[in-house]
Structures are given as C-alpha cells and as structure tokens.
C-alpha cells in the first residue's frame, strides 16, 4: 500500500549467543532502517589484557567465548609466537589442529541441530525439535559429545581447555590416550554425513546474496588453525597485514564494532566464505556428498549455511581421524618462547569465521596493546544487508511472520554476540 510504514522490532533475539535486538522500518515495501542492535555490554577484554603477561593471553581470551575458546587460544598463541619469533613444530601443530577439530564438531553440532534447524520447521526452539525429530537431535548431541571428548583428551577439559599454551601444550597425550577417541570420531563422521544428507530434506528459503567473502587459506589443507587471508575480491594478506585491509568502526546502535574490507562493506566470513574459497580442498567423497545434498559451490544463500556446517562437521571428524592415526607423541610438549619487545599477529578459522589477534609486547613480556577482531563483528553489516534483502523479498508477510523470517536471516550466521562485544575505547576527561 502506498505510503505504508511498518516498524518491526524484536527486543531479544532467540537462539543466538548473547544479547541483541532487531529493528526494521519498511516504507512502501523498501527497508528504510535496518539495525542489528547488539546491546550486550562491552566486555573490555582488550583493556583487561594490557599489563598482563604475554603467555596469559590464551587463557584470558579463551574466556571471551564458551563455545569457541580454542579459536581464541589458537589465534592468541599464534600471535604471541609471532611476537617471540618462534614456530611450533609440525607434531604440535597437528595436535592443535586436532583440538580445533573437536571445537568445530561441538560448535557446529550445537548450531546445526539446536539453534538453526528449528527455523526450518517453524519451531520455537530445540526442545520442540527434540519432541518431533528426536533422532536428528540425538545425532547432533552425539556429534557434540565426540567434539567434547576430543577437547577433554587434548585440551584437558571440554570447555575453556587448560592444556594449550604459547609454544605448544603443558602436556601431550600418549597414543594410547588418543586411541579410545577413534571409534567415537568414526561414528561422528557417519553421523555428520547423515546430518548432511538430512539437510537436503529441509525447506531452505531462496535467497541470493552477493557480498565479498573472507577466509583463512592454507595451501596444505582446509584452513582451520593457521594460514593467510584470502578474499573473493582477490586480496591476499597475512595476519600481520590485517590492519591494512580490515578497518573497524563504531556505529551508534551496536556495542560491537563493524568492519570494512579494503574499504568495502559488507563482507562475510564463516562457513559460506570457507566453502567458496577453500571447498575445493575438501576430500572428493565429501564434495560428492555435499553435491548430492544439493549444496552448490559457491553457495550464496545464507539459509543454506546449515548444509555447509554439516559438511564441515564431516570434514572435521575425518580430519580428526587422520590426525589420530598419524599421531606420534611429540618429543617435547612445548618449544621455548621468550618474550621480547615486539608485535605479533595470529589468525585462525573459528567456527564462525576468521578470528584475528594482534598484540604489542614490551621487553618484560607485558602486553601493551591488544586488538581482537572476532567473526561476528565483521559479519554484522552483512547480516543487516541480509535482513534488508529478506524483508524486501517477503514484504507480503504479516509483521509476526516477517519478523520471524528476519530473525532466521540473523541466525543463518550463527552470531556470537558475546564474542563480538569486547572492545574498549575509553576516554576519560578530567576537569
């Protein structure tokens, strides 16, 4: 109707980690205002790190997130090792990768089954899905349990692992300690493939989004624990060159910083970006299984990200099997990393996308500057663009249905709001 203005507000988003709201104003079928309003209180981690020892960063930053602590630990360790001028040997790197596979399994299983899947059945939550599709939920919980088991054995505990450290680990497991994981991981791989096949049955809404993709790339394999940044724009840069390409800025409606990539916004990091930029590195059998499930590559439909996560679960289980089979107890659990007056950078692929850490350390080993750029803050602008596109494509829906569909557009990206709202930009003026 000409001149019609509709305002849609969702004050508290469901099935996302952290606290955020949605504000949408439509006029004559066009989205005039779109705000993913992140109101979670800033958590000041970058400020908390200043003055702490360089080797405390992995444990402190792990506390940013209970779902992806390994991502924070890994990026922090890489950055501190960069600052110290050391590189961990391949055996320890593989053990980190195994730990990271555990995190991907538990994080993706949580999102695929309990946070994302209910959307495709118009169900409110995972409880309702469990009542109607208990087999699907049980399968997801089984995958999550295996991810937790890997994290317990390698990381010391399932949440906020205590074993990783700058330079390696406090203690490395024996082959015998890893052996019981193998049959569990084998089952998780089967369960993940079954989940991927199941996603082919979902009524996935049509949406085609054309935004730039950014992902970590490792020429030796599907990137997770290390690599350089590759963008669909052709940009290639190292973690140390991050600030030359990614610029953060504050917007009034969010306690998380927005980001631009080479001056352009929005861009997207996470499963769709990895699938587009690195999917060719996945095993042929997995690419075939994804194709059978109807997952194209590249995939530009954020609603189909559930399929990419399912494929990535199968890959993470397969990669974990490979690493367990090849495991030889490293000669030493850690390489010496002495502090020096330097800067260091690290980047890894958190389940939700590229996670950048940058630090300055003084000669005493104390952190003088910290910068952490999580995937969800990078994705905020892309999420808002998705909300806009979704709203304008579904303007015929009533307010409740349109609000629900727009909430789904947010959940497609598995936003971790608690991760995103951590910056500190505090100015004190005294008279």
């Amino acid at each position: 109707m000409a001149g019609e203005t509709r305002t849609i507000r969702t004050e508290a988003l469901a099935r996302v980690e952290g606290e955020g709201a949605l504000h949408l104003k439509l006029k004559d079928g066009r989205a005039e205002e779109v705000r993913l309003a992140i109101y979670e209180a800033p958590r000041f981690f970058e400020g908390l790190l200043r003055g702490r020892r360089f080797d405390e960063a992995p444990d402190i930053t792990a506390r940013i997130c209970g779902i992806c602590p390994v991502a924070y630990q890994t990026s922090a360790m890489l950055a501190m090792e960069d600052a110290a001028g050391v590189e961990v040997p391949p055996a320890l790197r593989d053990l980190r990768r195994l730990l990271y596979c555990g995190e991907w399994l538990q994080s993706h299983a949580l999102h695929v089954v309990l946070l994302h899947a209910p959307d495709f059945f118009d169900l409110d939550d995972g409880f309702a899905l469990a009542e109607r599709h208990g087999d699907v939920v049980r399968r997801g919980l089984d995958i999550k349990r295996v991810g937790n088991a890997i994290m317990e054995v390698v990381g010391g505990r399932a949440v906020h692992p205590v074993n990783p450290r700058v330079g390696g680990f406090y203690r490395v497991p024996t082959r015998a300690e890893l052996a019981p994981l193998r049959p569990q991981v084998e089952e998780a791989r089967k369960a993940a493939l079954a989940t991927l096949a199941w996603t082919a049955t979902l009524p996935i809404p049509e949406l085609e989004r054309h935004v730039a993709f950014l992902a970590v790339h490792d020429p030796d394999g599907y990137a997770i624990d290390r690599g350089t940044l590759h963008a669909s724009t052709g940009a290639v840069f190292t973690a140390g060159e991050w600030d030359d390409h990614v610029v953060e800025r504050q917007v009034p409606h969010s306690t998380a910083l927005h980001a631009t990539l080479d001056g352009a916004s929005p861009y997207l990091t996470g499963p769709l970006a990895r699938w587009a930029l690195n999917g060719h590195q996945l095993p042929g059998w997995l690419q075939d299984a994804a194709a059978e499930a109807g997952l194209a590559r590249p995939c530009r439909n954020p609603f189909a990200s559930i399929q990419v996560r399912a494929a990535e679960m199968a890959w993470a289980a397969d990669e974990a099997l490979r690493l367990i089979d090849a495991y030889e107890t490293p000669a030493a659990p850690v390489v010496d990393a002495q502090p020096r007056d330097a800067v260091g950078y690290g980047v890894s692929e958190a389940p939700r996308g590229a996670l950048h850490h940058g630090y300055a350390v003084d000669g005493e080993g104390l952190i003088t500057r910290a910068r952490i750029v999580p995937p969800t803050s990078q994705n905020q602008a892309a999420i808002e663009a998705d909300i806009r596109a979704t709203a304008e494509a579904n303007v015929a829906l009533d307010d409740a249905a349109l609000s629900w569909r727009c909430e789904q557009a947010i959940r497609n990206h598995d936003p971790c709001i608690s991760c995103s709202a951590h910056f500190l930009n505090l100015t004190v003026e005294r008279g």
Partner: protein
Amino acid sequence: MGDGAVLVGLGARDRGDDAAGLIVAARLRPRLGGRVRVVEGCADALMLVAELDGAATAVVVDALRTADAAPGTLSRVDLRAGAPPRPPARVSGHGDALGTGWRLARALGAVPRRWLLVGVVGADFTLGAPLSAPVRAALEPLAAAAAAALDGSTA
C-alpha cells in the same frame, strides 16, 4: 535404555558451596568402584543429557539456593515426577544445566527409569569463597544420601 547407573556431581569449584556436588562425586568415585559411572561437573545441559544416555539410574548431586531451609539441609527430588527446583536468582555458578537438561531429556524421551536430585542447601556462593561450615559438615551425609539414592534406598 541400558541398565547402567551414573552419578553426576554438578557445580563450580571456585564458587564457595557450589563445589559440594563436585566434592561428593570425587569422594564417591573410589567407593562406588566400577559399577557406577561418576562424572564430576557438566558445563551445560547438552553435556548432562549426553551423560544420561543409556543410564537406567541417574543421580545428580548439586548445591541448592533457597531461603526456605537452613544451610546444610539435605534434599532429595524425584526428577521423573517433576522439574528440579528453580534457583531464586537468574544467576548460577554453572548455568541452569539441570533445568535445561531436564527439559531436553524429557523432550527426547531420554529420562532414566530412576532419576534423582540429591542436594544440599548452600550458604555462600561467592567467587573464591571456601565451603561454608554447614555445607562442609554436610558433605558426608550428602555422599551417603547420594549413594543411597543410587541403591534405591532412602538412607
């Protein structure tokens, strides 16, 4: 569903009396031998539900917050008959793993044939606090009550 038994001690070690469930689970582990799987701590509801999988009997030990009973008071709740008591505040030392896990287990049809909560009323849940005197004194009675719950007796 299998015929095994599991004892889950819930809690947070550095939150005063909230450590009671973990301490009791650790004490009972050697006493129960291999006949009962003992789990110390479940960080979230999904982990709790996973631990219940295949168990015919499950006993959860946790500290409780309530103003209706004196610190150190023991409590036993049949979780097949109803939901666990809700904490009076939104804040918990370890999240609402039991409440959420209870809902999810029911939705999945994964409720053990016997499922009991054995709790002790805590006095102090402050970060870094030691166990309060009433809860410290109640640890052995709490362990005995948990063991009895596993056996199906009411000691």
